[in-house]
């Protein structure tokens, strides 16, 4: 008994000491400054452009505008989907503008470059919208935090149940760049390990307008499922063409990465019925609706999953700063991983040591025209996929304690 008391006492002292040490560190430059880097006018502008800035602003306002008595500031910039542009902006933010953390982060190529800059300067990367799983696997860093989804969750969420339902043979139409390749290879692994077979893949350059040639090749492969490992306009164009050439009648077409705005850009007759995986849907319950309504009032459209993620992770960061009593990155990131994220976005969530936020993912179905009450009524949630099932295990070399 005595020894337990002694242990408790020493833990208490240690805790008190660490708190006081942290408080001594305090807030650098008398402010907490958050940079939002996103695609403001390009192909991903609807997914995380101004919308991500709005979401971060909402988080700061909801938090009260100050943390530990110091003001919270936001600065934002357009990365134009170019890694060099993104990393030079972030370098400037860190060197001259006292930015403490950077969020937004859309195109995986930009995020890769920016995350390196941030790690070198020991600043936290709050990745809201990028799809690649590299940031928490082969390019993992103690300063990376990835929140909304990744290619592994998409493949597990969409591909696995389809193979399980007897759709054995797969064919991929893949966007010919890093993101598409990553998505295709992860999905291929899932197909193979679930007992299915990949018959082939065709790599279409990014920004292809006409997919009819690829659709014909997919058609002649005789696959049960044609998987679209692409995003944005590539996705809408390829699905439109697949429907036109009758592919949707003879095989299943699976969209591996579909944002709400992409689904809205398609004729419900074409897209209706398609199943996909998402990290967030605005119309899930009272909590998501309440936040999404406020977001729509300010931004004009319903939130994409990355925008809701940007709010949630900014909030979690600020809570961690408050709890840690400092904006020192090493202390804050430890705190972020200790505290359980829990809000309208993060359900049954933990932030793992590799920086992967593991939370419930949703298998949804795009509604048909007659099911839609209004233009924002797009998805029906079919299944909740528990985080551990969706995201896969953590790599030992990325276990940053």
């Amino acid at each position, binding site marked *: 008994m005595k020894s337990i008391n002694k242990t408790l006492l020493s833990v208490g002292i240690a805790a008190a000491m660490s708190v006081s040490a942290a408080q001594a560190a305090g807030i650098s430059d008398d402010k907490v400054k958050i940079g939002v880097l996103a695609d403001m*006018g*390009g*192909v*991903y*502008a*609807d997914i995380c*452009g101004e919308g991500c800035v709005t979401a971060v602003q909402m988080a700061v306002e909801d938090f009260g505008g100050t943390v530990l008595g110091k003001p919270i500031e936001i600065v934002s910039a357009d990365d134009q989907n170019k890694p060099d542009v993104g990393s030079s902006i972030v370098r400037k933010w860190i060197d001259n503008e006292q930015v403490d953390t950077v969020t937004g982060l859309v195109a995986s190529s930009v995020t890769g470059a920016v995350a390196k800059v941030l790690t070198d300067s020991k600043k936290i990367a709050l990745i809201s919208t990028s799809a690649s799983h590299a940031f928490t696997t082969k390019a993992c860093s103690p300063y990376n935090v990835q929140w909304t989804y990744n290619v592994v969750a998409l493949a597990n969420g969409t591909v696995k149940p389809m193979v399980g339902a007897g759709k054995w043979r797969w064919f991929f139409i893949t966007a*010919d760049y890093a993101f598409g390749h990553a998505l295709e290879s992860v999905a291929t692994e899932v197909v193979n390990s679930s007992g299915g077979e990949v018959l082939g893949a*065709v*790599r*279409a*350059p990014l*920004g*292809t*307008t*006409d997919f*009819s*040639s*690829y659709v*014909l*090749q997919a*058609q*002649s492969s005789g696959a049960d499922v044609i998987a679209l490992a692409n995003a*944005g*306009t590539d996705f*809408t*164009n390829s699905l*439109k*063409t697949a429907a*036109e*050439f*009758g592919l949707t009648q003879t095989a299943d077409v699976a969209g591996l990465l579909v*944002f709400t*705005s*992409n689904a*809205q*850009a*398609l*004729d*419900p*007759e074409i897209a209706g019925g398609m199943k996909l995986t998402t990290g967030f849907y605005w119309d899930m319950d009272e909590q998501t609706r309440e936040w999404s309504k406020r977001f729509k009032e300010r931004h004009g*459209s319903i939130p994409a999953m990355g925008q809701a993620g940007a709010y949630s992770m900014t909030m979690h960061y600020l809570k961690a700063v408050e709890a840690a009593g400092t904006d020192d990155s090493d202390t804050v990131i430890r705190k972020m991983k200790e505290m359980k994220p829990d809000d309208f976005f993060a359900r049954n969530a933990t932030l793992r040591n590799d920086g992967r936020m593991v939370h419930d993912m949703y298998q949804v179905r795009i509604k048909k025209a007659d099911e839609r009450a209004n233009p924002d009524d797009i998805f029906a949630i079919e299944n909740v996929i528990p985080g551990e099932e969706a995201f896969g295990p953590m790599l030992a070399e990325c276990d940053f304690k």
Partner: protein
Amino acid sequence: MATFLGINLFGLFGQLLVGLINGSFYALLSLGLAIIFGLLKIINFAQGAMYMLGAFAAWMALNYFGINYWAALIVVPLVVGFAGVVIERFLLRPIAGEDHLYSLLLTFGIALVLQGLFTQIYGASGQPYSIPDELKGGTKLPFMYLPDYRAWIIVASVLVCGLTWFMIEKTRLGAYLRAGTENPAILQAFGINVPLIVTLTFGFGVGLAGFAGVMAAPVYSVSPDMGSNMLIVVFAIVVIGGMGSIGGAILTGLGMGIIEGLTKYFYPEASTTVIFAVMVIVLLMKPAGLFGKEA
């Protein structure tokens, strides 16, 4: 399945037909560009934006005014053509005497402004537009399923390209146009209103892009960047065909569609590059382009 040298022939026929369809689309787009350059010597970088404008105008016509696809095919080219007339009269004419670079930069600027404006208002994801009911469905050929709408693209393109070529090369109006570019002063002396001809020609060329935009709306994503994706390819086609050669633009458009289609079959990764590779080769062998007159 019929094969030849290990190549699936049915697959190949399908790709050839799809290439031909794309080619007729390219022909339609490069035609307007070739007319504007051939007759007015303006390098119109806003042609892609006008194509985008055409697709968006079709979408707006349907959603705001209930104008269906078929009516849009007539109305939208007129509206877009009118926008072209306004651009020519108030922006291009003041710099008509200057170097070609000025009009190039001006039209490039217009394209960027339009694209930015539409992204700002309608977002980058695009808008839905359905295939008209009359053209839904398709025909089962021995080697592929041919959607009715794609067949319609070939018909419409051949019709419009043929009529335009006939009008410019074989009619009196076309003769005036060509004469006006050779020597405007003399034509003016014959009592022809040359500035009006110039304005209308620009409007017509731009209207063709608007027409192509309406044709594209049901099959491609109606989004602000659809024009800029297309423009560079179409420019390459006009250069290969010979800047300003109208027949050249049409034939090259069809040919490049087929070459691109075959590349998509044999080595898809190179499909966006192949047209430029052809362009480089053609320029090295025949600097004026395949059908261009040596200067």
